[in-house]
């Protein structure tokens, strides 16, 4: 829509003087109601994760079993009811936030750092290196993510660490590709040439100049990937390849409770909703960010 573009560009000319780009993004982000909702939700979950100890007592509520109080309907003292061991579901959901966000963030960090590194190298140097790296990643890419994760955990044994590693590894190609793409898009721009001209080292160029300018899409992708990572974690835990007891993890809570789904719906309802809302909020923010960073997509 050329006229609108004209106006925007004219408008930019004036405004960019006043506002930095990030502030600009933030402004647009704030304008998207859904994104704001997402941010609020995430903030809420983060809060829950960080201040969990202030909300409930891990030992007493989340771990201590009270078999004679098992499978209790939601009530005043157990607002989400109790599970098959008589543990307070609310407490476990709250601490589950910690686990899920932690696993999600770590596994994405793994994927991001390794994938990012490979992608940056491939994108920056191109040619043979690029080719080799990308072919190798194609191999990983040929196996559906969740299946690869399952295989890895199945082989290494079920534990939180292995889970994070598995989910991390299986997400490497995605990050490699996105980073590669962004790097390629910026590497030939003048300021990079300039940096080269003044004889800056490759790695300093990549780290100092290329990556920062390639950040936008990476951030968006990472946000959305944390969501899928959390989903993957839950899925693996569901088929028993996840976090080990008595650690409260949403997926394993679902797996453990699914025998009781008919009469004690709440056992699977609340952990399930926790997953849905967390993932949802991350997606909302991810979308918001993408639109904010790239208005024309809206």
């Amino acid at each position: 829509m050329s006229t609108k573009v004209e106006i925007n560009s004219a408008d930019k000319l004036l405004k960019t003087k006043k506002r930095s780009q990030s502030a600009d993004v933030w402004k647009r982000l704030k304008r998207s109601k859904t994104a704001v909702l997402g941010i609020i939700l995430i903030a809420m979950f983060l809060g829950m994760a960080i201040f969990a100890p202030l909300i409930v007592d891990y030992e007493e509520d989340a771990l201590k079993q009270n078999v004679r109080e098992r499978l209790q309907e939601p009530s005043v003292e157990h607002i989400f009811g109790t599970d098959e061991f008589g543990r307070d579901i609310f407490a476990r959901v709250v601490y589950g936030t910690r686990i899920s966000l932690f696993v999600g963030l770590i596994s994405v960090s793994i994927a991001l750092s390794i994938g990012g590194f490979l992608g940056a190298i491939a994108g920056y140097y191109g040619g043979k290196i690029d080719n080799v790296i990308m072919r190798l990643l194609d191999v990983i890419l040929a196996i559906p993510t969740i299946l690869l994760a399952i295989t890895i955990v199945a082989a290494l044994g079920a534990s939180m660490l292995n889970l994070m590693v598995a989910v991390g590894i299986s997400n490497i190609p995605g990050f490699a590709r996105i980073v590669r793409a962004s790097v390629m898009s910026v590497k030939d721009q003048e300021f990079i040439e300039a940096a080269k001209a003044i004889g800056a080292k490759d790695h300093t160029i990549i780290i100092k100049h290329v990556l920062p300018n390639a950040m936008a899409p990476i951030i968006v992708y990472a946000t959305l990937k944390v969501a899928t990572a959390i989903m993957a974690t839950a899925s693996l835990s569901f088929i028993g390849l996840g976090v080990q007891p008595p650690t409260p993890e949403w997926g394993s809570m679902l797996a453990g409770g699914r025998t009781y789904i008919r009469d004690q719906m709440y056992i699977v309802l609340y952990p399930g909703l926790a997953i849905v809302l967390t993932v949802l909020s991350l997606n909302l923010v991810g979308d918001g960010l993408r639109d904010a960073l790239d208005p024309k997509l809206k």
Partner: protein
Amino acid sequence: MIPVLIGVTFLVFFIISLTPGDPAVMILGNGATEEAISELREEMGFNEPVIIQYGNYMKDLLTGDMGTSYSTGKSVGSEIGQRFPNTFKLTLSAIVLSVMISIPIGVVSATRQYSLFDNIGMIIALIGISMPSFWVGLILIIIFALNLRWLPSGGMDGLKSLILPAFTLAIASTASITRTTRSSMLEVIRQDYIDTAKAKGVSRGVVIRKHALKNALIPAITVIGLEFGVLLGGAVLTETVFSWPGIGRLMVESIQRKDTPMVLGCIIVFAVAFSLVNLLIDILYSFIDPRIKASYN
């Protein structure tokens, strides 16, 4: 594609070989004697280094032999051959379902951007990609199989039993394909050539169908390809929840039984299927996008 698949087999074989424990025991079962076990170990070459074992495996694989199951002693190939069609049936109907739902919705949402339809559609789509399929599956069973008694809770007899699993499996991909279709459609209808078309006096409907859709489909198809992979992965969970006799469930069961050749076989089949689909997608491109056709010939 071939080199990729070889890479896949090696990667998977290597990962699986990291599994602790003794396959010989698995094959012989609890009752077996030490002698029998060590004997078998020798015979099956479990003492060889991984790379040798891999070599042997590949040799057999090329002759179409995927080995024999540790737990059932049946041929992995025939077992998978029996199960894969079911998974294929499930995933295929799921992808067809999602495409049929998502493309129209995506297009309408885009053409009526910010309308009530668009908003609701997008919210549902967002929630759709945010729900764990197995969770939805459980809930759908409760609602449709138990309370309403409309559909069977699981198993595989007739079309009726396909509905719930296929739908469950389709949710996530439907959602994300809808989103892609919408956003690419939005981008396309902002293009100058759409104005050119309008300026020619082409009617709104034709502009969308003939000029916009074809262009918008290109990115949509990419996602459909990727989603197929997601579906194959999702099958593992859906098949477990709905007791669907496909290789997804077979794989999970085999993992629990530590039936290495079976697990290996399943993943390789998954990977091959996925690769083939992507190949198909590439070919499909060239039909839609002349620019790619050009680069092909």
